[in-house]
């Protein structure tokens, strides 16, 4: 039931409680309760994906790889949390390979990001080195493609 609900919401974020209750054949209060619970448990989060570039708002994004000295007892989590709490940071991942963390940072311009990296990120205790890649263009984010949607070429009636 929870699974079914989440799956439906993932592909149809605009459905209201009434619609969902019809799909799941449950009453509306029940559905509302389950959604509340899923939100409380941090399983269901809502957020819009906006292609800002398209309406001319230029934001600058950078993908930063970070080498970190892990801390005894807490590993990478402590420094990762410190990084994640910055508002400028959009995503933080622990990764395998040469670097330890991958951080996606958002800013109004190049300078802002450069100063965030040199003043805030690189100076954090435990951070050994960073390498910054500026993102030049976004093609797909969170499963959403930023290309024109494909048209429906189907005949209006077919058997």
């Amino acid at each position: 039931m929870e699974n079914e609900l989440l799956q439906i919401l993932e592909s149809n974020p605009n459905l209201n409680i009434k619609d969902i209750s019809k799909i799941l054949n449950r009453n509306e209060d029940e559905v509302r309760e389950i959604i509340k619970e899923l939100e409380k448990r941090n399983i269901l989060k809502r957020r819009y994906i906006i292609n800002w570039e398209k309406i001319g708002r230029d934001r600058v994004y950078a993908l930063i790889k970070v080498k970190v000295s892990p801390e005894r007892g807490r590993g990478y989590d402590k420094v990762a949390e410190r990084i994640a709490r910055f508002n400028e940071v959009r995503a933080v991942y622990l990764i395998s390979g040469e670097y330890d963390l991958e951080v996606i940072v958002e800013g109004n311009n190049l300078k802002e990001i450069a100063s965030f990296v040199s003043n805030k990120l690189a100076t954090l205790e435990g951070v050994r080195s960073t390498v910054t890649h500026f993102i030049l263009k976004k093609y797909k984010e969170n499963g959403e493609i930023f290309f024109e949607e494909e048209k429906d070429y189907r005949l209006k009636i077919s058997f």
Partner: protein
Amino acid sequence: MNEKLSYIKPSGIRRFFDIIERVKDVISLGVGEPDFQVDWVIREEAIYCIEKGYTNYTSNQGLIELREEISKNIKKNYNIYYDPETEIMITCGVSQALDIALRTILNYGDEIIIPEPCYVAYKPLAILAYANPVVIKTHEENNFKIDLDHLRKLITPRTKAIIINYPNNPTGKSYSKNELKELAEIAEEYDLYIISDEIYDKLTYNGKHIPVAKFIKDRVVYLNGFSKSFAMTGFRIGYVCCNEKILKNMLKIHQYSMLCAPTISQYAAIEALRNEEKILGRILPEYKARRNYVYKRLIEMGFKTILPDGAFYIFPKIENLNVDAEKFSEELLFKKHVAVVPGNAFGDDYIKYIRISYANNMEKLKIAMDKIEEYVKELSVLKI
């Protein structure tokens, strides 16, 4: 001119379909193909094949790699084994497979039993095969399933075969294990072939689909394809699985009339089967949600409706509304810009039913259902 063609009438509701193209901004619930685009891995494979130059004829029977993949797939899903060398052939969609199957099995004047409501091509193709189609009506009271006692009464010494299609277009209903078993017994008893169009098998939401071949493999001509489960309608790939003797003869017609199914599409189909679980995992929950939603809405509007087991159609009855399906469909189109198919497209007696296809996204389905509800309310007011 071939006299047989005079028995094939252009569909009586042709006029309605001509009108549709002229109405703007229609939400069409009349579409018999998925709204999901063909998964990119499949399209990418087709592009790759063109680049590589895999653009020649294949063997008449179809690429052996594809036949092997199909054989594995049927084994995996249903635990039935068809030999890719001798029991599987690739065709241009199920339509062509059906055409050759009928021409292979039937002799001049043979009878073939066709349950209605059904897909529009069955009767015409039987006539073109110089056979006599014998219609068996199915009824809502019986969940649109064949009444087996009635079936026995229709069987004559000339009866050669019966066509079944499940999950069904237009009703969405399927057959259970026991029902199929009984049908298989009748086929055995009266020495009939079962031509089984199971193109919607993978789009099953209630229980598990079972091919009738499970019970009498040797008498079944099993038809399937890639148009519905993988949305590959324009690729035109279907397949037939049956015993070696029938297949050999079908191949004679196929090799001279079609040569082979489109090569690029055959390669794409291999890729489709290799990604089956991923692709179906993405679309099945979505179809099921839509089915549930549309069913509930129709019930709330007062339509007598049977919950479909599969495919992407639902077949509500428009009783108590003082209109027949043609009028209903036409007015719904003009007044509310929603297109549905009148039930009599699938058999003469179904003028009180409409076929709704839920192969549309939820947003469109919601709007369409709201509009149908508005229209039904207007009709009810008129009646009082």
